[in-house]
């Protein structure tokens, strides 16, 4: 991952930053005595676990449909090589030439949304790129240009991913509705999977709506709230959710993985979906 900051493997220029000329002469790159590395380490571990899991699932290209449940990683299915899901999200936009896992076609959007998300940016800049590793801990990079140039200037397209994420969330909502069928596609039933999907879709929506771009679009861009009372209320509502954006980012990441994992377990026959009615 690049952040526009280039590490300096062997550099013989005089030190800059906190050890640079003019600053108080202190040799240590930081003097923090607490366990400052814990948060970035935990973040990195969590994100890494998700990356490993989702990569395996996407490329495994199997066990993603167990009627009536479709894994959120594979929905909507846009290639011909998808498993057919009755009245499910099969739209063969890409026809037959697509030979890879159909998950890749669709995962780009939620991944892009999360990759450009203001919270995840913080998380991986800190966790993976150590820029900075923690507050007031010197970063190991010689140069830093942040998000001022390519490729990181592309972070500015976050709001387009937000628009896409709305669509994806809509489709996952549709999937959740479909989950109120039984394995024979009869309506009016519910199983443990339905519950998993319900929780997941609620969290996905909460995360999506709590997005900073959303907050801006619904009202933040206004100069005069007093002239737009409805948008002001919407902005306040999104603002309340937004305060928990980090939490929602994590729990929705876990819930979407769990939903997929649940489908995997059922589809691969580890156990049968317990039906409530």
């Amino acid at each position, binding site marked *: 991952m690049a952040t526009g900051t280039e590490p300096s493997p062997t550099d013989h220029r005089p030190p800059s930053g906190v050890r640079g000329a003019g600053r108080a002469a202190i040799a240590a790159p930081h003097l923090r005595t607490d366990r400052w590395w814990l948060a970035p380490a935990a973040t990195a571990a969590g994100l890494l676990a998700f990356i490993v899991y989702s990569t395996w699932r996407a490329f495994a290209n199997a066990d993603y449909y167990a009627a009536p449940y479709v894994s959120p990683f594979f929905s909507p299915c846009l290639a011909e090589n998808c498993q057919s899901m009755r009245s499910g999200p099969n739209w063969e936009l890409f026809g037959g030439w697509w030979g890879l896992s159909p998950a890749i076609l669709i995962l780009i959007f939620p991944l892009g949304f999360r990759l450009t998300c203001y919270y995840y940016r*913080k998380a991986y800049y800190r966790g993976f790129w150590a820029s900075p590793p923690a507050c007031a801990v010197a970063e190991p990079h010689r140069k830093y240009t942040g998000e001022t140039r390519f490729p990181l200037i592309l972070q500015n397209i976050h709001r387009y991913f937000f628009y896409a994420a709305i669509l994806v969330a809509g489709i996952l909502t549709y999937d959740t509705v479909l989950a109120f069928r039984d394995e024979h596609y009869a309506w009016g039933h519910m199983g443990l999977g339905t519950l998993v999907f319900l929780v997941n879709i609620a969290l996905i929506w909460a995360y999506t709506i709590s997005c900073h771009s959303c907050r801006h679009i619904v009202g933040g861009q206004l100069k005069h709230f007093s002239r737009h009372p409805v948008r002001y209320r919407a902005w306040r509502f999104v603002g309340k959710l937004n305060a928990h954006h980090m939490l929602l980012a994590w729990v929705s990441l876990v819930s979407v993985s769990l939903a997929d994992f649940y489908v995997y377990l059922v589809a691969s026959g580890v156990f049968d979906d317990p039906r409530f009615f």
Partner: protein
Amino acid sequence: MSSYEARFRVWRGDIEGGGLKDFEVEVNDGEVVLDIVHRLQATQAPDLAVRWNCKAGKCGSCSAEINGRPRLLCMTRMSVFDREETITVTPLRAFPVIRDLVTDVGFNYRKAWEIPAFVPPEGVGPGEYRMFQEDVDRSQEFRKCIECFLCQDTCHVVRDHEENKTAFAGPRFLMRVAELDMHPLDAAEESGLDRGRTAQDEHGLGYCNITKCCTEVCPEGIKITDNALIPLKERAVDRKYDPLVWLGSKIRRRSS
């Protein structure tokens, strides 16, 4: 009332050099780090330089770093530390040191000059300003800033990269841009000044990688990143990267 001897390491020196100096000093119940620094002055090091003023967390003068974290000396209670712990106090490490705990914060005053001031609306006289509470709430939050410059100190963009100081205004002054851009009566736009665009083009908003250290250190609890910097980034996107918004504003301008 119990008192004990605490171990302190205080950075002493100036631009020529210096180092951490060890002290043993009495600590009484309820004291803050600034009290201990004052006791050092009165008993062991009369020429120990420290900047302070109100001693109530309202003026933002006594910014320093305690155990490596940027903090106000007057708002850091001794009771948060272990009695056995050695407490290290250093000057702010993002700015040039003057002497002991005092640094040259001139960077911030130069940046203040670079942010165009409030533009009063034409044709609205003194006493005729009408603004609604919900319209001033956002900017009022930013105006709680006591200019302690801890956010400027902790921000890695300038803390770790001296060369970025020219291009980057820092969280405090980007927040000032946001404050003015959200001010209900600021007439910058009418005067031809686009604050959202200049935030990115002239004040280095793009350097911010929203790692939120500024928010973490803010003694006033201002949500600098969520409420000022990110909204400002979104406003810059409106101007520069969003064809829909751009088109919309063109049409609206034409129709009005």
